[in-house]
Structures are given as C-alpha cells and as structure tokens.
C-alpha cells in the first residue's frame, strides 16, 4: 500500500470550482461552486443530490478525468493532475470493453496498466480468478458483455476495478440502471467486497454517487448532500448505523429518520427541477 504523504485526509477538495463553456453560445455553466470536502482513508462516502447538481463533475475531478477551474483536488496531499490507477472508477453504463470477455475485461488493468507490473502471467490470472469469484461471476468468464444481464455487467465492472487494487474506488451511480431487487443484492455485495465485516484498516476509500437517498444511507459512513444551480454542498451528515448493514438496517428508525432529513434538504430543489425541466427543457443528464 502507498503511504500518505501527510497524515491528512485521503482525498481533499479545497475551494473547488468547475465551470463549463457551452460550445455554441459561449455561455458559462457553473457545475460546481466552491466545494470543500475532506474524505478520510477507508471511508465510504456518498454524494446525493438532484440531477445536474454536479455529482459526476466532482467524481470526474477526483478521478482526474476533469480538472477544476478553481481550487485544488488532492490525494494524500498531492494535487491530482490526471487519471491514475490509484483512483479507479465504476460507471453507470458499465463501460465494459465489448470485444473482451468477462475474464479479459477484469484482467485489463493488470495486463496493460502499472498495477500489474511485476506480476507473472500466472499470478495475474489467479488474481483475476479470485475477483471473478468475489463478484459471483464464476462460470461466465468466457462470455462477452453483450451476453450478460445488467446486474452481471456491473459485477464485471466492479471486479475490473477491484482486480486493479486501487486506493480509492469512485462509483458514479453504478446501480442506477438496475432493477430494484438486483440493486439491493449488489448494495450488500459491494459492502462485503469493501470489507465491511473485516478490519477497518483494510478498507479502501469509496466515493459513491447516487440519486437514491435510501441507497446513500444504507451504504455510507457519511452522506454529502448537494443542491443544484449552482452545484453546492449544502450538508454533510454522519450515518451512525451499525455495520454490517443488513435488511434489518432499512427498517431501523434512525435509517428512516436520516432518509427523511435528506429528503427534506433536497425536496424543494427536486420539485423545482422537475417543474423547470417541464418548462425550460432542463439541463443535466
């Protein structure tokens, strides 16, 4: 494991601002307005907010896929200037390589990236095989992504990330396209893979994006609530629910109370966005 340069947080956003220039009109869109956030090592942090509030933009800046227009984004005290194997990502639309089998997809980072350097072919294969088992894809290794269900595709996406052993796992609405049952199963599996039942020090840092409040509460140590126009962090809430989280977690009064609190924070915004989308054609994805 890499050693932090400082004893500070794993990830840090410092007065981060991000604007986009709309190509034709030249108009400026403020996607994220002065965000400050410190994410601790081993923490499971979730960002919720209405569509278009800048969640993906923040995650892309953490990944290094976008650079902030103002302020700094840093990992272990070092400024993030581009994508790297230390910060892996899972995408809502899976982004699997269609010409590669499940096994080859999961092997991809180790085969072509820096984290596989020094592994023999046999070592690499056995690590991939372990990840296949970890996400329950045993028996589908030789299938192509188009032969898989949505849930299986996302298992493959998660395995591809986990096999590469990044320090930080970035997940952009990974379960949004799945049906409700699959979603619940994958939430629990994700927590298991993250190491919920194991030693705290063994856990990786996870930044997870969702627009589903129950999902955020169920998974997280902390929930960041954002609002749109401009995208701002309006609240950061601790989730004091015991781990491991189970079905019973969802019925606890604290779970329901926290979900309600978050809903109250963004309700007005969601309504406003929904009606504005009807009249003004609405931005966002």
């Amino acid at each position, binding site marked *: 494991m890499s050693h932090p340069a400082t004893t500070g947080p794993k990830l840090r956003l410092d007065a981060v601002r991000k604007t986009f220039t709309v190509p034709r009109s030249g108009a400026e869109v403020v996607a994220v307005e002065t965000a400050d956030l410190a994410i601790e090592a081993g923490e499971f942090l979730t960002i919720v907010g209405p569509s278009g509030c800048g969640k993906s933009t923040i995650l892309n800046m953490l*990944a*290094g*896929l976008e650079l902030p227009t103002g302020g700094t984004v840093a990992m272990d005290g070092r400024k993030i200037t*581009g*994508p*790297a*194997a*230390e*910060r*892996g*990502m899972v*995408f809502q*639309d899976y*982004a*699997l*390589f*269609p*010409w590669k089998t499940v096994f080859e997809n999961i092997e*991809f*980072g180790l085969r*072509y*990236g*820096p*984290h596989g350097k020094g592994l023999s072919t046999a070592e690499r294969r056995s690590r991939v095989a372990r990840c296949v088992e970890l996400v329950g894809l045993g028996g589908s290794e030789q299938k*192509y*992504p*188009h032969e898989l269900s949505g849930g299986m595709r996302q298992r493959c996406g998660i395995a*591809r*990330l986990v096999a*590469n052993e990044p320090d930080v796992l*970035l997940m952009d609405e990974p379960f949004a396209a799945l049906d409700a049952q699959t979603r619940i199963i994958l939430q629990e599996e994700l927590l298991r893979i993250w190491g919920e039942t194991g030693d705290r020090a063994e856990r990786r840092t996870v930044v997870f994006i969702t627009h589903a409040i129950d999902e955020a509460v169920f998974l997280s140590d902390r929930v960041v609530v954002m609002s749109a126009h401009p995208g701002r962090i309006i609240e950061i809430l601790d989730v004091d629910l015991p781990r491991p989280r189970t079905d019973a977690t969802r019925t606890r009064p604290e779970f329901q109370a926290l979900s309600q609190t978050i809903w109250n924070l963004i309700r007005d915004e969601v309504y406003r966005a929904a009606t504005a989308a009807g009249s003004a054609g609405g931005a966002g994805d």
Partner: protein
Amino acid sequence: MSTTRWPRYFILPVALIVLWQLWGMTLPARSRAPVPLDVLASAVELVASGRLPMAILQSLGRVGLGFLVAGAIALVLGLLMGFFRPVERNLDPIIESFRPVAPIALLPLAILWLGTGTPAAVFIVAYAAFFPMIVNTIAGVKGVERRLVQAAQTLGVPQLTILRTVVLPAALPSIFVGVRVAMGLAWMSIIAAELAVGSKGGGGGSGGVGEMMFVFYAYYIELDSIVVCMIAVGLVALAIDHGLRWLQRWLMPWAEQYR
C-alpha cells in the same frame, strides 16, 4: 410450390440471357454483338488456357500490395489523427487537398516516375485505397465511446497503449467499412490503370486483366473476350467483398450489429 427454392430466383436472369441469345441469332453473322453462347465459349478458352487466371492473379497481386501499403499508412495516421487533435490539425489540410484528385489522374505522373509496370500500378492502387481508409479510420476513432477510454485511463493504462488496446478495436467496425470501400476502389483503379497504360506491340504493357482487355479491344476486336473479362472483374470484386465480410465476422465476433 417447388421442392427447391433456387429456380425461382434464376427465372428472370435465365430468361434475359435466353432472350439475348435469341436476339443475337437474328443478327447477321459477322456483327459485333456478343451473344451468350459465344461469350461462354470464349470464357472456357480463356480459363482453360490459363490466360485469364494469370491476368487476374497479376492484377490481384498489385491490388494486394498497394492495399497493404495504403492500409498501413492510413491506419497509423488515422489513429493518431483521430486521437490527438494537434496531429489532425497539421495533417488534415494536406490530406484534404489531395483527396479530390482522382487516382487515374495521377497516372501520367506515375508512369513518368515509375514506368508502366507494377510499381506504377501499385502506386495508383495505394493512392485510391488510402483515402476511404484514412477517412473512416479517423471517423471511427472519433466515434469511440469516451467512457471506454476513460475506463482504461482510470485503470492507469498509458495513452499509447489505450490507442492500441481500446481505440483500435473500438474503431475496427468503422475501419472495416473503409477497407471495403477502399478495396472496391482499388480494384476499379487497377483495371482502369492497366487499361489506360495498354500495351505496345513488342511488350512494355502493363499486364493484368486491364491490359488483356486492352489487347482484345485494340488488336483483335474480340468483344466476346472483353465481356468475359468484364464478368470476371465483377465476380472477383464480389468474391473479395464476401471475403472481407467473412474476415469482419471472424475478427469481430462481439459486434453483433455488423452481422
């Protein structure tokens, strides 16, 4: 109704050929209109003597060579131009200014530089094949889902490796469209070039199917043989395209939509 299906599809073509033959038989004996039976006789002779197969092989060899040269250059340049904006900005004006010049228009230059033999023919083929391939390669690279590139980037894969392992396979269906168009153009151009170079009595001709047609036209006035050559050229083009489609399915078993 019938037990086998194929006769239905052949009714019209066969009827047309029979009509053509009947019409030809009403003409005076030494008219120049080719009729099917004469064409068939001529085809048998040309194939049996090995002249036509040899000529086709020679033309095909040139197409293959010119095609490989053009393909290699177009692939490398196209990948770089599609992926790295500055490369495109610098090279695009050059490529676009050559693109409207028809391959056959370069023939005089090619002959002056390279003579009338294989090098000039290969040059014409390569020139003809280059543009559809580079244009489709660039379009294919630009059409690659950004997500796939980002997925590789967040796994820490270096840019040039991404170009090879993500962009190239993702762009392959589009590249193949270019390959098929280019192959058709290359085959047309080689026949045109060989025809245009023609043949001088004592050698110095271009060789290939095109020269063969020229000889039948200019020296023997054998229309039947020319028709045989035309049909052969068409059949070869058809066979090449089928071969490429098969190759496409074999190379890209995942690309269901291109079946």
